[in-house]
C-alpha cells in the first residue's frame, strides 16, 4: 500500500435507480476510490442533511431493500473496491441481524457502519459480525468523552469513523477545525485506522484531511454530483471525475 490516506465514497443504493446507483459506485472506484460505503435507504435518516435525504427519499419511495443493497455489494466487490455497508439500525434489525451479517459476508462485503447504533446497544450486532468475520465500524464525535472514545474504539473492527463536526452530513465550505484533535485523541488510545467524514467535497479539502487522517470519507458531494447529472450516464461520469479529483487530493496531503 502506498503511504497515503485511503479514499472512501458514500452513495445510497437506489438513487436514481438501483442499477444506476451501482454503476455510480463502480464509477467512483474507477476514479480511484478505495472503499465504497454502500448506503441502505432509510425513511428517517436522522444524521443526514438535505442532499442525502433527497436522494434517499427517492430510493425509499421506490421500495429499495436489503436485497438490492446486497447486489450493490457484489457489484462493488467485482470492481475491485472494498464494499462496506452503511445502515441505520432498523433496516438491519428488520432483515434479521444474523441473516444480514451472513448475507453481507457472502456477497463480499467487508463490514458495516452503523451511524445510530452505539456500542452500548450493539451486543447482538457485534456477536453476529464476529461470527461472519465482518468489520463493524462505530462513530466517534467531537463531543465523545475519553471514556466513550476508548469504549467505542475498542468495539470497532476495521476502522474508526470520526464524525468531524457536530452536525449532519452535507458539503461545507470549510472542513472542521476540531477534526484533527479528534483524530489525535483516537490515535492515542487505538491502533485502528481513523477515517474522517462529514463535510469534505473538494480535492483540496481531501488533501487537508489526508494530512492527519488515515482515510477521507466523501458522501454528499458524490450524491450532489448524481443529483445534478442530466441523466444516469452523465451522473456516473460526474462522480468518476469527482473521485479522480479527490484521489489526487489524498495523494497530496496538504
Amino acid at each position, binding site marked *: 500500500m502506498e503511504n497515503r490516506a485511503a479514499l472512501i465514497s458514500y452513495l445510497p443504493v437506489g438513487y436514481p435507480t438501483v442499477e444506476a446507483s451501482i454503476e455510480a459506485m463502480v464509477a467512483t472506484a474507477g476514479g480511484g476510490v478505495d472503499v465504497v460505503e454502500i448506503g441502505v435507504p432509510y425513511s428517517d435518516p436522522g444524521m443526514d442533511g438535505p442532499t442525502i435525504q433527497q436522494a434517499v427519499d427517492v430510493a425509499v419511495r421506490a421500495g429499495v431493500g436489503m436485497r438490492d443493497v446486497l447486489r450493490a455489494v457484489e457489484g462493488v466487490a467485482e470492481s475491485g473496491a472494498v464494499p462496506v455497508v452503511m445502515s441505520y439500525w*432498523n433496516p438491519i434489525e428488520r432483515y434479521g441481524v444474523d441473516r444480514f451479517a451472513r448475507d453481507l459476508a457472502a456477497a463480499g462485503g467487508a463490514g458495516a457502519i452503523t451511524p445510530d447504533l*452505539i456500542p452500548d446497544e450493539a451486543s447482538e450486532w457485534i456477536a453476529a459480525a464476529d461470527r461472519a468475520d465482518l468489520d463493524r465500524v*462505530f*462513530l466517534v*464525535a467531537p463531543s465523545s468523552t475519553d471514556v466513550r472514545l476508548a469504549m467505542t474504539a475498542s468495539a470497532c473492527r476495521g476502522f474508526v469513523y470520526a464524525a468531524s463536526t457536530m452536525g*449532519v452530513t452535507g458539503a461545507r465550505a470549510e472542513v472542521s477545525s476540531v477534526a484533527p484533535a479528534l483524530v489525535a485523541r483516537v490515535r492515542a488510545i487505538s491502533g485502528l485506522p481513523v477515517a474522517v467524514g462529514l463535510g469534505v467535497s473538494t480535492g483540496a479539502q481531501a488533501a487537508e484531511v489526508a494530512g492527519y487522517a488515515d482515510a477521507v470519507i466523501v458522501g454528499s458531494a458524490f450524491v450532489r454530483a448524481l443529483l445534478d447529472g442530466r441523466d444516469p450516464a452523465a451522473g456516473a461520469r460526474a462522480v468518476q471525475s469527482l473521485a479522480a479529483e479527490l484521489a489526487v487530493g489524498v495523494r497530496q496531503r496538504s
Partner: protein
Amino acid sequence: MSAPSRTDNGVDAGNGVEVPGRFGPYGGRYVPEALVAALDELDEAYRSARADLGFREALWALQRDYSGRPTPVTEAKRLSQYAGGARILLKREDLNHTGSHKINNVLGQSLLTQRIGKSRVIAETGAGQHGVATATAAALMGLSCTVYMGEEDTRRQALNVARMRLLGAEVIPVTTGSRTLKDAINEAFRDWVTNVETTNYVFGTVAGPHPFPTMVRDFQRVIGDEAREQVLERFGRLPDAVVACVGGGSNAIGIFTAFLGDDEVRLLGLEAGGDGIETGRHAATLTSGLPGVLHGARSYLLQDENGQTIESHSISAGLDYPGVGPEHAYLRDTARASYLPVTDAEAMKAFELLSRTEGIIPAIESAHALAGALVLGRELGPDALILVNLSGRGDKDVATASEYFDLAEQTEAERDLAERAPEEQ
C-alpha cells in the same frame, strides 16, 4: 397534597423496570454518538434536579400558580347515558394553561434547561400543543425557541402556528418525508446535534432516547397522582378503569403511572384508528405495528418489510405518529395495559357528544379516549367508574371539526343540487 411527592419518584415505576431507560426489551438509546454527551448531561441534570427540593418546589409553584394545577375531576353526568350508564369522570387537563397536558412536561424541561445553563430550546410538534406549551415556557423563562412542525400539520393546526409566533417562537415547517410529526422529530434531532452547546431539546412525549421516556413520564405523572387522590376522596374507591388516548403516550403514561400498582384498575389506551385498521390508513402502532427502532428507542412502530417507517394517518394531528413510547410497548406485552384503535369517525362522534352533553369541546386527541370510554362503559355497566384523561381542549380543532361536520351536511345538499340541475353549477 404536598408539593415534593409530585415529582419525587424513582426510575422504577412500580412495574419492575430497573435498568434506567429500559422497559423490558424496549427503550434504550439508538442515537448518533454525537448526541450521547447531551443525553448524558440531561440525564444527570434531571437526576440531580429530582433530588433537589428547591427544584421540585419551583416546578410545583409554576404548576400551581402559572398552569392552574391541580386540575379538577368533572363527572360527565349527561354523557353517562351514552356509556351504558357507567359513571364517566374527566380529568380536566384541558383546563391547564395553553390547553393541554403538554405544559406539565414543558415546565419541568424548561426549568432543567435553565439549570444546565442553555439559552435556547427546540421542540417538535404535531397538533401544535407541545409547540405552544414550549413557546409559552420559553417566553416565561426568557429562552429563545424554535419549533419544528410538519408542513402538513402547519396547515391543519394553523391557529397553533399563529399562537407560537405570537409567543415569540420561530416555527419551521418541515417539508421532508411525510411532512408530519415524525419528520419534525428528525429535523429537531438534526438541529440538536448541530447546536447542542447552546440548545436543549424539549421532547414532547414519552418516546425518544433515554432519558426522555422516563423524564417525561415523571413530569406527567402528576396527572394520575392527583386524579387517584381526587377519585378516592370523592368516590371512596378507585376507578374500575383509567382511559387515555395514545399518540407518543405521554398523557396516557401520565395518568396510568399512579395506578400501575392497583391491579384491579384496568388501564386502556386508545390509538388513532384513522380510516380503520383494515384500510392501512391509521396510526395504531401498538395494535398493528412491530417491534423495532425509531427516533432513538426500541418500541413498536409502523414499518414495512424493509424496516422503513410507514406514514401514519389520523384526523388528529397529535396522534398521527407511527411510533409509541417504549413503556407502553412494555405495558402492552405484559398485558398490564391494553390498547385499542378508535377510528376518525368514532372519535368525531365522541367529540360532538361531549360538546353537546357537557359543554366541553375536547381536543380531537382526547375524543379518542372518550370514544373508548363509551364502549367500555357499555361493557362494564352502570356501577362502573371510568376515569378518562381529557388531555386537551378543542379550540385548536374548531376548523377541522367544522369542516368535518359541514362536509357531512353539505354532501347531501350538494347531491340534491347535482341531481336537480348539474348544468347550473
